[in-house]
Protein backbone atom coordinates (compact mmCIF):
# COMPACT_ATOMS: atom_id res chain seq x y z
CA UNK A 1 0.00 0.00 0.00
CA UNK A 2 1.14 3.55 -0.66
CA UNK A 3 2.23 5.87 2.11
CA UNK A 4 -0.60 6.90 4.41
CA UNK A 5 -0.49 9.67 6.99
CA UNK A 6 -3.18 10.11 9.61
CA UNK A 7 -3.84 13.69 10.71
CA UNK A 8 -7.37 13.13 11.97
CA UNK A 9 -6.90 12.13 15.60
CA UNK A 10 -9.73 14.41 16.71
CA UNK A 11 -12.09 12.14 14.77
CA UNK A 12 -10.72 8.98 16.29
CA UNK A 13 -7.44 7.29 17.17
CA UNK A 14 -5.91 3.86 16.60
CA UNK A 15 -6.09 1.67 19.64
CA UNK A 16 -2.90 1.30 21.61
CA UNK A 17 -1.40 -2.24 21.49
CA UNK A 18 -1.17 -2.45 25.26
CA UNK A 19 -4.81 -1.40 25.54
CA UNK A 20 -5.93 -3.98 23.02
CA UNK A 21 -4.03 -6.71 24.82
CA UNK A 22 -5.60 -5.78 28.14
CA UNK A 23 -9.05 -6.07 26.55
CA UNK A 24 -8.71 -9.34 24.67
CA UNK A 25 -9.16 -11.79 27.59
CA UNK A 26 -12.54 -10.21 28.34
CA UNK A 27 -13.88 -11.23 24.94
CA UNK A 28 -13.03 -14.89 25.40
CA UNK A 29 -11.85 -16.54 28.67
CA UNK A 30 -13.36 -13.91 30.98
CA UNK A 31 -16.53 -13.22 29.04
CA UNK A 32 -18.89 -13.44 32.02
CA UNK A 33 -21.68 -11.01 32.81
CA UNK A 34 -20.56 -8.83 35.74
CA UNK A 35 -24.02 -9.20 37.28
CA UNK A 36 -23.69 -13.01 37.54
CA UNK A 37 -22.73 -14.46 40.91
CA UNK A 38 -20.65 -17.34 39.53
CA UNK A 39 -16.91 -17.11 39.03
CA UNK A 40 -17.21 -15.97 35.42
CA UNK A 41 -19.35 -13.08 36.49
CA UNK A 42 -17.19 -12.24 39.46
CA UNK A 43 -14.01 -12.12 37.36
CA UNK A 44 -15.70 -9.68 34.98
CA UNK A 45 -17.04 -7.61 37.87
CA UNK A 46 -13.58 -7.42 39.36
CA UNK A 47 -12.24 -6.11 36.05
CA UNK A 48 -14.98 -3.49 35.82
CA UNK A 49 -14.36 -2.36 39.39
CA UNK A 50 -10.62 -2.11 38.81
CA UNK A 51 -11.25 -0.09 35.68
CA UNK A 52 -13.59 2.22 37.57
CA UNK A 53 -10.98 2.73 40.23
CA UNK A 54 -8.25 3.54 37.67
CA UNK A 55 -10.48 5.95 35.77
CA UNK A 56 -11.56 7.69 38.98
CA UNK A 57 -7.96 8.16 40.12
CA UNK A 58 -6.94 9.81 36.84
CA UNK A 59 -9.69 12.41 37.29
CA UNK A 60 -9.24 12.70 41.07
CA UNK A 61 -12.80 11.45 41.44
CA UNK A 62 -14.28 8.85 43.75
CA UNK A 63 -14.75 5.22 42.74
CA UNK A 64 -18.53 5.53 42.93
CA UNK A 65 -18.61 8.72 40.88
CA UNK A 66 -17.64 7.04 37.57
CA UNK A 67 -20.37 5.61 35.34
CA UNK A 68 -19.53 3.84 32.10
CA UNK A 69 -21.60 4.67 29.03
CA UNK A 70 -21.80 3.52 25.44
CA UNK A 71 -20.13 6.66 24.04
CA UNK A 72 -19.17 10.25 24.66
CA UNK A 73 -22.47 11.16 23.03
CA UNK A 74 -24.40 9.15 25.59
CA UNK A 75 -22.46 10.75 28.45
CA UNK A 76 -23.31 14.24 27.12
CA UNK A 77 -26.96 13.39 26.57
CA UNK A 78 -27.27 11.83 29.98
CA UNK A 79 -25.53 14.64 31.85
CA UNK A 80 -27.72 17.36 30.42
CA UNK A 81 -30.98 15.49 30.17
CA UNK A 82 -30.50 13.85 33.55
CA UNK A 83 -29.84 17.10 35.41
CA UNK A 84 -32.65 18.89 33.58
CA UNK A 85 -35.24 16.24 34.40
CA UNK A 86 -34.26 15.87 38.05
CA UNK A 87 -34.04 19.60 38.76
CA UNK A 88 -36.93 21.08 36.83
CA UNK A 89 -38.72 22.01 40.02
CA UNK A 90 -35.78 24.21 40.89
CA UNK A 91 -35.57 25.87 37.50
CA UNK A 92 -35.69 25.47 33.76
CA UNK A 93 -32.66 27.45 32.61
CA UNK A 94 -29.51 25.93 31.09
CA UNK A 95 -26.41 27.78 29.95
CA UNK A 96 -24.14 26.37 27.29
CA UNK A 97 -21.97 27.75 24.49
CA UNK A 98 -22.46 28.21 20.77
CA UNK A 99 -19.50 25.96 19.93
CA UNK A 100 -20.44 22.77 21.77
CA UNK A 101 -20.46 19.40 20.03
CA UNK A 102 -23.84 18.43 18.59
CA UNK A 103 -24.17 15.81 21.32
CA UNK A 104 -24.63 18.77 23.70
CA UNK A 105 -26.31 21.25 21.35
CA UNK A 106 -28.99 18.92 20.06
CA UNK A 107 -29.74 17.67 23.58
CA UNK A 108 -30.26 21.29 24.61
CA UNK A 109 -32.48 21.93 21.59
CA UNK A 110 -34.59 18.93 22.50
CA UNK A 111 -34.96 20.30 26.03
CA UNK A 112 -36.03 23.67 24.62
CA UNK A 113 -38.92 21.88 22.92
CA UNK A 114 -39.79 20.41 26.32
CA UNK A 115 -40.04 23.89 27.87
CA UNK A 116 -36.50 24.55 29.08
CA UNK A 117 -34.80 27.85 28.34
CA UNK A 118 -31.29 27.58 26.96
CA UNK A 119 -28.70 30.36 26.69
CA UNK A 120 -26.07 29.71 24.01
CA UNK A 121 -23.15 31.89 25.04
CA UNK A 122 -21.18 33.47 22.22
CA UNK A 123 -17.42 33.04 22.06
CA UNK A 124 -14.69 35.49 21.09
CA UNK A 125 -12.70 35.24 17.87
CA UNK A 126 -10.44 32.61 19.43
CA UNK A 127 -13.38 30.50 20.54
CA UNK A 128 -13.17 31.42 24.23
CA UNK A 129 -16.17 31.63 26.53
CA UNK A 130 -16.02 34.59 28.91
CA UNK A 131 -16.50 33.38 32.52
CA UNK A 132 -17.93 36.79 33.44
CA UNK A 133 -20.64 36.23 30.93
CA UNK A 134 -21.40 32.84 32.46
CA UNK A 135 -21.73 34.59 35.81
CA UNK A 136 -24.03 37.31 34.54
CA UNK A 137 -26.31 34.84 32.77
CA UNK A 138 -26.84 32.72 35.88
CA UNK A 139 -30.23 33.52 37.37
CA UNK A 140 -32.42 32.05 40.11
CA UNK A 141 -33.86 29.50 37.68
CA UNK A 142 -30.50 28.33 36.27
CA UNK A 143 -29.82 24.67 37.01
CA UNK A 144 -26.91 23.75 34.77
CA UNK A 145 -23.93 25.21 32.95
CA UNK A 146 -22.45 22.98 30.24
CA UNK A 147 -19.22 24.21 28.64
CA UNK A 148 -16.79 21.96 26.82
CA UNK A 149 -13.22 21.60 28.10
CA UNK A 150 -11.70 21.74 24.60
CA UNK A 151 -13.24 22.19 21.21
CA UNK A 152 -13.10 19.38 18.68
CA UNK A 153 -12.72 21.62 15.63
CA UNK A 154 -10.54 24.55 16.60
CA UNK A 155 -8.95 23.03 19.71
CA UNK A 156 -9.59 26.02 21.98
CA UNK A 157 -9.29 25.16 25.67
CA UNK A 158 -11.87 26.83 27.91
CA UNK A 159 -11.22 28.35 31.35
CA UNK A 160 -13.20 25.59 33.07
CA UNK A 161 -11.56 26.12 36.46
CA UNK A 162 -12.66 29.76 36.49
CA UNK A 163 -16.15 28.80 35.40
CA UNK A 164 -16.17 26.11 38.10
CA UNK A 165 -15.51 28.71 40.79
CA UNK A 166 -18.53 30.66 39.62
CA UNK A 167 -20.93 27.72 39.35
CA UNK A 168 -19.86 26.48 42.77
CA UNK A 169 -20.47 29.86 44.35
CA UNK A 170 -23.86 30.19 42.64
CA UNK A 171 -24.92 26.64 43.47
CA UNK A 172 -25.40 25.61 39.85
CA UNK A 173 -24.21 22.31 38.38
CA UNK A 174 -21.28 22.41 35.96
CA UNK A 175 -20.99 19.82 33.21
CA UNK A 176 -18.00 19.73 30.89
CA UNK A 177 -17.66 17.73 27.69
CA UNK A 178 -14.04 16.67 28.08
CA UNK A 179 -14.10 14.23 25.17
CA UNK A 180 -11.32 16.08 23.33
CA UNK A 181 -9.43 17.12 26.44
CA UNK A 182 -8.81 13.83 28.22
CA UNK A 183 -5.33 12.64 27.44
CA UNK A 184 -3.83 16.07 26.83
CA UNK A 185 -5.22 18.24 29.63
CA UNK A 186 -4.69 17.41 33.30
CA UNK A 187 -8.11 17.08 34.89
CA UNK A 188 -8.89 17.31 38.59
CA UNK A 189 -12.64 17.39 39.08
CA UNK A 190 -12.31 18.58 42.70
CA UNK A 191 -9.85 21.36 42.01
CA UNK A 192 -11.83 22.48 38.98
CA UNK A 193 -15.23 22.18 40.70
CA UNK A 194 -16.68 20.03 37.94
CA UNK A 195 -19.93 18.23 38.80
CA UNK A 196 -20.28 16.20 35.62
CA UNK A 197 -17.68 15.29 33.00
CA UNK A 198 -18.02 13.32 29.76
CA UNK A 199 -15.23 11.35 28.15
CA UNK A 200 -14.84 8.85 25.32
CA UNK A 201 -12.12 6.22 25.00
CA UNK A 202 -11.61 6.27 21.23
CA UNK A 203 -10.20 9.80 21.40
CA UNK A 204 -7.27 8.71 23.58
CA UNK A 205 -6.12 5.49 21.90
CA UNK A 206 -8.82 3.35 23.50
CA UNK A 207 -11.68 1.44 21.88
CA UNK A 208 -14.71 2.96 20.17
CA UNK A 209 -18.20 2.72 21.63
CA UNK A 210 -17.23 3.19 25.27
CA UNK A 211 -17.37 6.37 27.31
CA UNK A 212 -17.87 7.49 30.86
CA UNK A 213 -19.67 10.14 32.81
CA UNK A 214 -18.24 11.40 36.05
CA UNK A 215 -21.09 12.44 38.35
CA UNK A 216 -20.18 14.18 41.59
CA UNK A 217 -21.67 12.43 44.60
CA UNK A 218 -24.98 14.00 45.56
CA UNK A 219 -25.80 15.37 42.10
CA UNK A 220 -29.50 15.10 41.40
CA UNK A 221 -29.86 13.10 38.18
CA UNK A 222 -32.36 10.88 36.44
CA UNK A 223 -31.16 7.92 34.36
CA UNK A 224 -31.20 8.07 30.59
CA UNK A 225 -31.52 4.33 30.08
CA UNK A 226 -33.90 2.17 32.11
CA UNK A 227 -33.62 -1.57 32.64
CA UNK A 228 -31.20 -3.67 34.66
CA UNK A 229 -29.53 -2.57 37.87
CA UNK A 230 -26.09 -2.00 36.37
CA UNK A 231 -23.92 0.98 37.33
CA UNK A 232 -25.62 1.15 40.72
CA UNK A 233 -29.05 1.41 39.15
CA UNK A 234 -28.21 4.49 37.17
CA UNK A 235 -27.24 3.22 33.74
CA UNK A 236 -28.95 0.04 32.61
CA UNK A 237 -27.40 -2.40 30.16
CA UNK A 238 -24.88 -5.22 30.52
CA UNK A 239 -21.43 -3.72 30.96
CA UNK A 240 -19.08 -3.71 27.97
CA UNK A 241 -16.32 -5.32 30.02
CA UNK A 242 -13.59 -5.33 27.34
CA UNK A 243 -14.45 -1.74 26.44
CA UNK A 244 -14.39 -0.63 30.07
CA UNK A 245 -11.04 -2.35 30.64
CA UNK A 246 -9.77 -0.70 27.46
CA UNK A 247 -10.98 2.73 28.52
CA UNK A 248 -9.28 2.47 31.90
CA UNK A 249 -6.01 1.16 30.48
CA UNK A 250 -6.01 3.90 27.84
CA UNK A 251 -6.78 6.75 30.25
CA UNK A 252 -4.03 5.62 32.64
CA UNK A 253 -1.50 5.36 29.82
CA UNK A 254 -2.53 8.69 28.38
CA UNK A 255 -2.20 10.36 31.78
CA UNK A 256 1.20 8.93 32.54
CA UNK A 257 2.62 9.88 29.13
CA UNK A 258 0.80 13.18 28.91
CA UNK A 259 3.58 15.71 29.53
CA UNK A 260 5.94 13.91 27.19
CA UNK A 261 3.34 13.47 24.45
CA UNK A 262 2.15 17.06 24.72
CA UNK A 263 5.65 18.40 24.36
CA UNK A 264 6.21 16.40 21.19
CA UNK A 265 2.81 17.25 19.76
CA UNK A 266 3.09 20.96 20.42
CA UNK A 267 6.45 21.06 18.70
CA UNK A 268 5.12 19.26 15.62
CA UNK A 269 1.90 21.27 15.58
CA UNK A 270 3.68 24.62 15.76
CA UNK A 271 6.10 23.62 13.05
CA UNK A 272 3.17 22.60 10.90
CA UNK A 273 1.30 25.86 11.48
CA UNK A 274 4.39 28.04 10.97
CA UNK A 275 5.37 26.05 7.90
CA UNK A 276 1.98 26.48 6.26
CA UNK A 277 1.86 30.18 7.10
CA UNK A 278 5.30 30.85 5.60
CA UNK A 279 4.77 28.74 2.49
CA UNK A 280 1.24 29.83 1.64
CA UNK A 281 -0.37 33.29 1.55
CA UNK A 282 -3.86 34.17 2.65
CA UNK A 283 -4.11 31.57 5.40
CA UNK A 284 -5.74 32.15 8.79
CA UNK A 285 -5.23 30.15 11.95
CA UNK A 286 -8.56 29.33 13.58
CA UNK A 287 -8.70 28.98 17.35
CA UNK A 288 -6.42 30.34 20.02
CA UNK A 289 -2.68 30.60 19.31
CA UNK A 290 -1.73 29.15 22.73
CA UNK A 291 -4.81 27.92 24.56
CA UNK A 292 -5.31 25.07 22.15
CA UNK A 293 -5.07 21.28 22.14
CA UNK A 294 -1.49 20.11 21.58
CA UNK A 295 -2.37 18.23 18.41
CA UNK A 296 -4.82 20.66 16.84
CA UNK A 297 -4.12 22.86 13.83
CA UNK A 298 -7.11 24.45 12.12
CA UNK A 299 -6.37 26.64 9.14
CA UNK A 300 -8.55 28.44 6.61
CA UNK A 301 -7.29 28.87 3.08
CA UNK A 302 -8.87 31.79 1.29
CA UNK A 303 -10.49 31.33 -2.14
CA UNK A 304 -10.78 27.54 -1.96
CA UNK A 305 -13.11 24.99 -0.48
CA UNK A 306 -12.36 22.39 2.18
CA UNK A 307 -13.64 19.20 0.62
CA UNK A 308 -11.58 19.60 -2.51
CA UNK A 309 -8.54 20.13 -0.29
CA UNK A 310 -9.37 17.00 1.72
CA UNK A 311 -9.75 14.86 -1.38
CA UNK A 312 -6.57 16.22 -2.91
CA UNK A 313 -4.71 15.48 0.31
CA UNK A 314 -6.23 12.01 0.49
CA UNK A 315 -4.94 11.31 -3.02
CA UNK A 316 -1.49 12.07 -1.62
CA UNK A 317 -2.12 9.74 1.30
CA UNK A 318 -2.89 12.40 3.91
CA UNK A 319 -6.05 12.08 6.01
CA UNK A 320 -7.45 15.34 7.41
CA UNK A 321 -10.82 16.96 8.08
CA UNK A 322 -12.72 20.17 7.25
CA UNK A 323 -15.58 22.31 8.51
CA UNK A 324 -16.85 23.12 5.02
CA UNK A 325 -20.52 22.61 4.21
CA UNK A 326 -19.73 20.22 1.42
CA UNK A 327 -18.15 17.81 3.88
CA UNK A 328 -21.13 17.85 6.19
CA UNK A 329 -23.95 17.40 3.72
CA UNK A 330 -25.63 20.57 4.92
CA UNK A 331 -25.54 23.96 3.26
CA UNK A 332 -23.84 25.73 6.12
CA UNK A 333 -20.26 25.41 7.19
CA UNK A 334 -19.42 24.39 10.75
CA UNK A 335 -21.29 26.23 13.51
CA UNK A 336 -18.01 26.55 15.40
CA UNK A 337 -16.27 28.43 12.60
CA UNK A 338 -19.27 30.72 12.18
CA UNK A 339 -19.40 31.33 15.95
CA UNK A 340 -15.79 32.60 15.99
CA UNK A 341 -16.86 35.13 13.39
CA UNK A 342 -15.52 33.64 10.18
CA UNK A 343 -17.36 34.54 7.00
CA UNK A 344 -19.01 31.61 5.24
CA UNK A 345 -16.39 31.91 2.56
CA UNK A 346 -13.44 31.50 4.92
CA UNK A 347 -15.23 28.81 6.91
CA UNK A 348 -15.73 26.74 3.76
CA UNK A 349 -11.98 26.81 3.24
CA UNK A 350 -11.05 25.33 6.60
CA UNK A 351 -8.75 22.38 7.11
CA UNK A 352 -8.30 20.60 10.44
CA UNK A 353 -5.12 18.66 11.03
CA UNK A 354 -5.20 16.83 14.32
CA UNK A 355 -1.92 15.19 15.22
CA UNK A 356 -1.42 12.22 17.48
CA UNK A 357 1.28 10.19 19.15
CA UNK A 358 1.92 8.07 16.06
CA UNK A 359 2.83 11.07 13.88
CA UNK A 360 6.44 11.93 13.07
CA UNK A 361 8.44 15.01 12.08
CA UNK A 362 8.97 13.38 8.67
CA UNK A 363 5.22 13.33 8.17
CA UNK A 364 5.06 17.04 8.91
CA UNK A 365 7.77 17.59 6.29
CA UNK A 366 5.88 15.55 3.72
CA UNK A 367 2.71 17.49 4.45
CA UNK A 368 4.49 20.83 4.14
CA UNK A 369 5.96 19.70 0.83
CA UNK A 370 2.62 18.49 -0.48
CA UNK A 371 0.10 21.13 0.58
CA UNK A 372 1.35 24.23 -1.33
CA UNK A 373 0.86 22.55 -4.73
CA UNK A 374 -2.64 21.46 -3.80
CA UNK A 375 -3.63 24.92 -2.65
CA UNK A 376 -2.09 26.52 -5.73
CA UNK A 377 -3.91 24.17 -8.08
CA UNK A 378 -7.30 24.80 -6.45
CA UNK A 379 -6.72 28.52 -6.31
CA UNK A 380 -5.90 28.59 -10.01
CA UNK A 381 -9.32 27.03 -10.54
CA UNK A 382 -11.14 29.44 -8.25
CA UNK A 383 -13.15 32.43 -9.51
CA UNK A 384 -12.61 34.11 -6.14
CA UNK A 385 -8.87 34.02 -6.60
CA UNK A 386 -9.33 35.53 -10.04
CA UNK A 387 -11.20 38.47 -8.58
CA UNK A 388 -8.58 38.90 -5.92
CA UNK A 389 -5.76 38.99 -8.45
CA UNK A 390 -7.19 42.22 -9.81
CA UNK A 391 -10.31 41.10 -11.51
CA UNK A 392 -11.06 40.06 -14.99
CA UNK A 393 -13.13 42.36 -17.09
CA UNK A 394 -15.48 40.92 -19.64
CA UNK A 395 -17.70 43.89 -20.30
Amino acid at each position, binding site marked *: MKKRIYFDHAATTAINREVLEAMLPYYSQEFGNPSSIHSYGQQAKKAVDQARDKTAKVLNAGFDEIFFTGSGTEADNWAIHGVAMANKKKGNHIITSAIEHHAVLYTCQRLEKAGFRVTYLPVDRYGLVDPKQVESEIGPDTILVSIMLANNEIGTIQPIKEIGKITKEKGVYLHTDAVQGVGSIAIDVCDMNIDLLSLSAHKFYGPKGIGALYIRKGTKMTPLLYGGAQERNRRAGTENTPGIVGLATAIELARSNMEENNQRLIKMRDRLIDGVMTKIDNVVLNGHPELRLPGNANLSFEFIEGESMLLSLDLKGIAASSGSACTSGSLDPSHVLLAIGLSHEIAHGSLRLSLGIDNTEEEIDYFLDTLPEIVARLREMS*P*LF*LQKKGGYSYV
Partner: protein
Amino acid sequence: MYSEKVMDHFINPRNVGEISEPDGVGEVGNARCGDIMKVFLRIEDNVIVDVKFKTFGCAAAIATSSMATELIKGKSVDEALAVTNKSVTEALDGLPPVKLHCSVLAEEAIQKAIEDFKEKQETKVGA
Protein backbone atom coordinates in the same frame (compact mmCIF):
# COMPACT_ATOMS: atom_id res chain seq x y z
CA MET B 1 -17.85 7.97 -2.19
CA TYR B 2 -17.27 9.43 -5.69
CA SER B 3 -17.29 7.50 -8.98
CA GLU B 4 -14.08 7.06 -10.95
CA LYS B 5 -15.34 9.54 -13.52
CA VAL B 6 -15.96 12.19 -10.88
CA MET B 7 -12.47 11.66 -9.49
CA ASP B 8 -11.00 11.84 -12.99
CA HIS B 9 -12.71 15.15 -13.69
CA PHE B 10 -11.74 16.43 -10.25
CA ILE B 11 -8.08 15.50 -10.67
CA ASN B 12 -7.85 16.52 -14.33
CA PRO B 13 -10.60 19.03 -14.90
CA ARG B 14 -11.12 19.92 -18.57
CA ASN B 15 -11.50 23.50 -19.75
CA VAL B 16 -10.28 25.30 -16.64
CA GLY B 17 -9.43 28.90 -17.30
CA GLU B 18 -10.76 32.13 -18.69
CA ILE B 19 -11.57 33.53 -22.13
CA SER B 20 -10.71 37.15 -22.69
CA GLU B 21 -13.58 39.15 -24.17
CA PRO B 22 -15.95 36.20 -24.12
CA ASP B 23 -19.20 36.23 -26.06
CA GLY B 24 -21.07 35.15 -22.99
CA VAL B 25 -20.23 34.82 -19.31
CA GLY B 26 -22.26 33.47 -16.42
CA GLU B 27 -21.54 33.29 -12.71
CA VAL B 28 -23.77 31.49 -10.23
CA GLY B 29 -23.69 30.41 -6.61
CA ASN B 30 -22.11 32.33 -3.80
CA ALA B 31 -19.44 31.82 -1.24
CA ARG B 32 -22.13 31.47 1.43
CA CYS B 33 -23.36 28.13 0.17
CA GLY B 34 -19.85 27.02 -0.65
CA ASP B 35 -19.95 26.66 -4.43
CA ILE B 36 -19.38 29.28 -7.15
CA MET B 37 -18.99 28.66 -10.85
CA LYS B 38 -18.07 31.08 -13.57
CA VAL B 39 -18.39 30.07 -17.25
CA PHE B 40 -16.89 31.83 -20.27
CA LEU B 41 -18.19 31.11 -23.78
CA ARG B 42 -16.79 31.80 -27.22
CA ILE B 43 -19.65 31.54 -29.70
CA GLU B 44 -19.40 31.66 -33.47
CA ASP B 45 -22.44 31.21 -35.75
CA ASN B 46 -24.45 30.09 -32.79
CA VAL B 47 -21.99 27.30 -32.01
CA ILE B 48 -19.99 27.12 -28.79
CA VAL B 49 -16.49 26.93 -30.17
CA ASP B 50 -14.74 27.35 -26.85
CA VAL B 51 -15.68 27.22 -23.19
CA LYS B 52 -13.71 27.74 -20.00
CA PHE B 53 -14.64 27.73 -16.35
CA LYS B 54 -13.49 28.64 -12.88
CA THR B 55 -15.08 26.97 -9.87
CA PHE B 56 -14.84 27.44 -6.13
CA GLY B 57 -16.29 24.37 -4.52
CA CYS B 58 -16.14 20.74 -3.60
CA ALA B 59 -15.03 17.89 -5.83
CA ALA B 60 -18.60 17.43 -7.07
CA ALA B 61 -18.81 21.07 -8.10
CA ILE B 62 -15.47 20.94 -9.90
CA ALA B 63 -16.21 17.64 -11.65
CA THR B 64 -19.66 18.76 -12.82
CA SER B 65 -18.20 22.03 -14.10
CA SER B 66 -15.63 20.08 -16.06
CA MET B 67 -18.10 17.55 -17.47
CA ALA B 68 -20.71 20.18 -18.32
CA THR B 69 -18.21 22.23 -20.29
CA GLU B 70 -17.18 19.07 -22.16
CA LEU B 71 -20.81 18.33 -22.99
CA ILE B 72 -21.49 21.76 -24.52
CA LYS B 73 -18.24 22.24 -26.40
CA GLY B 74 -18.90 22.24 -30.14
CA LYS B 75 -22.66 22.22 -29.60
CA SER B 76 -25.17 24.78 -30.77
CA VAL B 77 -26.54 27.24 -28.26
CA ASP B 78 -29.86 25.42 -28.21
CA GLU B 79 -28.21 22.05 -27.68
CA ALA B 80 -26.22 23.55 -24.81
CA LEU B 81 -29.41 24.84 -23.22
CA ALA B 82 -30.73 21.29 -23.18
CA VAL B 83 -27.86 20.10 -20.96
CA THR B 84 -29.27 19.61 -17.48
CA ASN B 85 -27.75 18.75 -14.15
CA LYS B 86 -29.27 15.32 -14.67
CA SER B 87 -27.43 14.72 -17.92
CA VAL B 88 -24.19 15.99 -16.38
CA THR B 89 -24.61 13.76 -13.34
CA GLU B 90 -25.36 10.76 -15.53
CA ALA B 91 -22.30 11.43 -17.64
CA LEU B 92 -20.28 11.30 -14.41
CA ASP B 93 -21.81 7.93 -13.43
CA GLY B 94 -23.80 9.59 -10.66
CA LEU B 95 -23.13 11.63 -7.54
CA PRO B 96 -23.85 10.92 -3.87
CA PRO B 97 -27.37 12.20 -3.03
CA VAL B 98 -26.06 14.93 -0.68
CA LYS B 99 -24.00 16.28 -3.56
CA LEU B 100 -26.80 16.69 -6.07
CA HIS B 101 -27.27 20.34 -5.14
CA CYS B 102 -23.66 21.01 -6.14
CA SER B 103 -24.35 19.71 -9.65
CA VAL B 104 -27.11 22.25 -10.35
CA LEU B 105 -24.45 24.94 -10.48
CA ALA B 106 -23.06 24.01 -13.89
CA GLU B 107 -26.46 23.91 -15.59
CA GLU B 108 -27.32 27.32 -14.16
CA ALA B 109 -23.98 28.90 -15.01
CA ILE B 110 -24.22 27.74 -18.63
CA GLN B 111 -27.78 29.04 -18.93
CA LYS B 112 -26.71 32.36 -17.49
CA ALA B 113 -23.76 32.63 -19.87
CA ILE B 114 -26.03 31.93 -22.83
CA GLU B 115 -28.51 34.55 -21.59
CA ASP B 116 -25.64 36.99 -21.38
CA PHE B 117 -24.67 36.07 -24.94
CA LYS B 118 -28.22 36.65 -26.17
CA GLU B 119 -28.46 40.00 -24.41
CA LYS B 120 -25.21 41.10 -25.98
CA GLN B 121 -26.55 40.01 -29.38
CA GLU B 122 -29.62 42.15 -28.88
CA THR B 123 -27.67 45.23 -27.88
CA LYS B 124 -25.44 44.74 -30.90
CA VAL B 125 -28.48 44.46 -33.18
CA GLY B 126 -30.12 47.43 -31.51
CA ALA B 127 -27.05 49.65 -31.85
